[in-house]
């Protein structure tokens, strides 16, 4: 390898690594939205999952159990969202905000109660790269694509699976119909309620993994507010990707690319005040919305509750 190629490979590898929380949180959002459940609690769910996932890993000494606990926490928040909106027909956005608040509150409260304030932060080991036999030996590509941590592979597989599931199975067709026009789905015997619960819970679990990824890959510890708006950015990414799994996966490369760029320029000593580089991901996202929001297709009943007995006026 020559001297120029190595940093390029590292950049590419870093982008894939950084893409994971965006992909997972965004696919989770997309999945719920496809049945009409619009989750806006991502930021809170990611924080509380990161917090609890970290604590569980710390005490159990097992990252696997930590990931599972984060999934459960995310799924539980998804369940709550589904219950309040599908069962009790409460406003999806308001409930989403309330869950966001609870997530934020719990994320700082629990470490304080469990660990207290310490001088040196408690650490967990970070996820290790798992080289795929043979494939990881391919020049350039191998290092970028086949020598990553398990959740990078997982995020890509989840995206492809969701595409197949939504577009190539009859269950997926039924599922999508509940988000496009629940009356129509219901009139054909498809249970709107079941679909909404299912996707809200699974979607929440995906968002939970996105959250716990941060302490497990980036920092090894939980710090207050460490999600830094990635939950909100994931919503923007979902719109950017037109609520389609593969487009979201591709779009996440862009979001991750901006984040890596912001970070790399900061350490390169370019003379640009680092605060302006910190703004970059948010400003870039707003700019992206300017160009893509109008064209974005969204599920027809996104964010709207369905009440079979409510008479159309």
């Amino acid at each position: 390898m020559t001297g120029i190629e190595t940093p390029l490979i590292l950049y590419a590898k870093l982008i894939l690594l950084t893409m994971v929380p965006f992909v997972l949180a965004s696919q989770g959002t997309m999945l719920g939205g496809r049945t009409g459940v619009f989750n806006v609690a991502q930021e809170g769910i990611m924080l509380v999952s990161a917090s609890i996932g970290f604590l569980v890993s710390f005490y159990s000494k097992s990252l696997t159990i930590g990931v599972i606990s984060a999934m459960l926490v995310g799924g539980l928040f998804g369940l709550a969202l589904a219950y309040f909106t599908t069962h009790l027909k409460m406003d999806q956005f308001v409930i989403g905000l309330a869950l966001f608040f609870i997530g934020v509150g719990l994320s700082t409260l629990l470490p304080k109660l469990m660990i207290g304030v310490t001088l040196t932060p408690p650490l967990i080991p970070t996820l290790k790269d798992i080289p795929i036999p043979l494939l990881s030996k391919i020049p350039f590509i191998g290092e970028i694509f086949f020598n990553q941590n398990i959740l990078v592979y997982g995020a890509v597989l989840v995206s492809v699976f969701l595409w197949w599931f939504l577009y190539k199975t009859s269950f997926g067709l039924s599922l999508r119909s509940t988000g496009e026009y629940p009356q129509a789905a219901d009139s054909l015997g498809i249970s709107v309620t079941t679909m909404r619960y299912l996707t809200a819970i699974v979607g929440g679990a995906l968002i939970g993994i996105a959250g716990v990824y941060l302490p497990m890959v980036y920092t090894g510890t939980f710090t207050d507010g460490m999600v830094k708006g990635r939950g909100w950015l994931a919503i923007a990414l979902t719109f950017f990707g037109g609520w389609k799994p593969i487009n979201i996966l591709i779009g996440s490369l862009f979001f991750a690319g901006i984040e890596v760029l912001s970070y790399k320029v900061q350490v390169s000593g370019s003379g640009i005040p680092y605060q302006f580089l910190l703004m970059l991901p948010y400003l870039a996202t707003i700019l992206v919305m300017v160009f893509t929001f109008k064209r974005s297709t969204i599920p027809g009943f996104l964010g709207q509750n369905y009440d079979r007995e409510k008479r159309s006026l």
Partner: protein
Amino acid sequence: MTIMAKSKPTILNTLIPYVAAILIALAAVGVFIALMGFDVLKAYYTILFTSFRTPNGFIQTLLKFIPLVLQAYAFTVPLAAGKFNIGGEGQLIVGAIGAAAVGILLPDLPPLLLIPLVLLGGIVAGALWGFIPGWLLYKFNINEILTTVLLNFVSFALINYVATGPWRDPAAGHPTTIPIGRGGYLPLLVDNPPLHAGIIIALLVAVAVYFYTTRSTAGYELVATGANPRAAGVFGINVKYMFVLSIVIAGGIGGLSGAIEVSGVQHRLIEGLQHNFLVLGLIIGLIAKGNNMAVPFVAFFIAVLEVGASAMQRTLMIPVEMVFIVEALVLLFVLLSDVVRRK
């Protein structure tokens, strides 16, 4: 969410669900506190009565009330038009930057000039910050929820830049600017413990918002827009303009809250001066169900809890976030009471 009051409820009927929500939330968290091995009764006594036992407690509560009520209005005014402003935090920070800039650049003006200018600097800066998502909504139809939130994160970097730039106070360890001119300090209503005149400004804003939204013709258009933008547009209301106007007004109110923090409390720009006012403001606005008449009362209640929470952390070592959970649960149960009533 219904913005208008339902057909003439009695005060008692309105209060019962709120009281019930508070009691259930306290009970739920109480169980948790007890399980953690703390003294529940002592904790709740501290939370609920710190504000009323000493003059200091009461004045602390009023000081907390000022930014909270303003943040709540920054949320509820656009809500009346059906728009969600989650950017009160950024508007506060940018307002604080604007106020501090005026106060630092014109340090020698007399109070009669400098105080209004500092406040105006905050209002204008906040309104401009609010104008960005408003304009994006107007021009490109971009959802205001995401833009307002994302601009908060931009403002975090911005305040850090300003507080570590040329105006930086070299003596401070934390990113902080030099103080604004003495003439920019808000006068004190009570000297000891100190209570600044921001409370009067906050109450004036409350009255103005009330008259604007319920009595004025412009407020009618705001409410009609929120009730059904499509129909409002069909019947001659420029709804896009109402959207932008509501977010700009909210930005101005948010900016004012930042200016008061600078001119009344800190007398300089300090990174982190926004605390968690945004989230509390949202909770207040949602508990009040967008009703601008109810906002000051809810804000006072939350201020009581917040002051009590700090005392509880000091004396009983229970983290303040415990009270935040109480507040979020109160919100959830207040919302639930609507469902119960529907049945």
